[in-house]
């Protein structure tokens, strides 16, 4: 950058590590397929909902998509319900959760706060919330759309014996209580 002394290499190692992390994330992002029957933009609409924090607007977009492409939307939500985020996304989440754990632990130590749970427990719990939240939103999305195909998927999922409790609860609620009466 002309005119300003560039900062030398004190943070070069960190930058390199971040660079590799970024490259890895790009590769992961590119490797994630477009969902069957949906365009890339429509795939993002579904994934934006499955990964949402503020879900009201993403849910509206999802329901609008389902009006146009009901089966493809429902199929992709069912895939999210049954399988959760892909293994690469979960591995990347693990990595970032460990980075966050170290940062938060240092912050707590510097501010004389009690330590966090052991790293393995902390990461496992956070990973479960990430994965199960994604799966639960798959169920809730099916419940809001509530076509016969969507309900059939929820009926099928309700029979599964290996669903985590929060996902099972989401399946039953989505099938029996969504959409709520106006």
């Amino acid at each position: 950058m002309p005119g300003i002394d560039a900062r030398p290499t004190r943070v070069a190692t960190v930058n390199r590590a971040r660079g590799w992390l970024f490259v890895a994330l790009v590769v992961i992002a590119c490797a994630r397929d477009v969902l069957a029957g949906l365009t890339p933009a429509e795939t993002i609409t579904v994934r934006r909902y499955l990964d949402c924090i503020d879900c009201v607007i993403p849910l509206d977009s999802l329901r609008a998509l389902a009006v146009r492409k009901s089966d493809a939307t429902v199929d992709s939500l069912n895939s999210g319900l049954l399988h959760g985020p892909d293994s690469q996304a979960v591995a990347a989440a693990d990595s970032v959760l460990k980075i966050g754990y170290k940062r938060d632990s240092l912050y707590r130590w510097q501010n004389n706060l009690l330590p966090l749970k052991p790293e393995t427990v902390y990461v496992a719990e956070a990973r479960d919330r990430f994965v199960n939240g994604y799966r639960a939103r798959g169920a809730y999305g099916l419940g809001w759309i509530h076509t016969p195909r969507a309900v059939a998927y929820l009926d099928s999922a309700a029979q599964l014996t290996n669903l985590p409790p929060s996902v099972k609860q989401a399946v039953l609620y989505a099938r029996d209580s969504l959409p709520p009466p106006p």
Partner: protein
Amino acid sequence: MKKSAKHRGFFGTRLITSLLVVAFAASCIFAEATSGDIVVAFPGTPIADPALLLYSGKEGNSCVEYEGAIADPTVTLHNVSIDAGCEVEFDAFAPARGAYAVGVDFSNPASDDFLEAAMVAGSMDIALPSLTSLPLQIWLVGLTSQVTAMEEVRDRMLNKAFPVLSVLGTGFTLDTASAVLNPSLLTPHCNSADVISMNPAIYDASKLNVYFVAHYGNIQGLTPANNCWMKAHPEILFLSWQNANLTDPTLAHELGHALGLIHPKSLGGHTYAISGFDAYNLMATNTDVTSATVGQLYAMNFSSDSWINRSGSPLAKPVVRTCQDTWGAGECPALTLVQLGWPP
């Protein structure tokens, strides 16, 4: 002879006066034209947590806008001069420090004194303020028997928000107070934001109001959280504490909305799958937050959309701008603006 001498005296006085006027004018002109290097230091900022400087102004023959540099431990600006055609602003951020900004208002001749002094001295100190403390009124909306469960979720959110806000250099920390509310007193939906904001028993107008409700809208799974900025109440935040999968960065994310991260409005400032933002950006992730762009830090502190800069706010910053409703550059730096190697 006498008359001639008198005339000589008169003309001599006029000549001297004219020369003085010319000299004074020239000194003003030369002062305007003065340029020089400025070494900017950041006293009180440790080497391990260096400051990021954004400089806008004249440098060499061109105007620069929001030109970034990381202190090591100083930043040298080369060939700086003052030109009314170049907007002048110095912004600085650092982990665990408050954000700093100073600008020049060319309609106020005194407002560039600091810059002239810096050009004469060849140096300038920027002392970053302490963190801006955001007052949070946390409302635990549930029955007495549910308090322990609500507090557990609240603490998990706060345990993430504090380090994220500090380490990423946002300039903010939190000052929290909690109270328990019976669910019958509140409709947990942004459609009720106006009603909520008129009831001092369930709302504090001087604070950000964070409502931990069982389920937003009383509908399970509708959303883990929501900020009511679209109802003109960015100071009202809802988090669904009975959502077993409420992820740790949720409170920090909603505070981002309260602090003006709502652009472009078509996406509510969400950066998921947006080019220029990584997957673990404050406004994208529900795993953990490892980044906020420089553009986002700027908007949180200096945007007129940020709650701290609302009319009459005691926390308002000395520089407040109306940021553009795009990802790209405009009145404020582009939200995609990043500085390689920062935050440290």
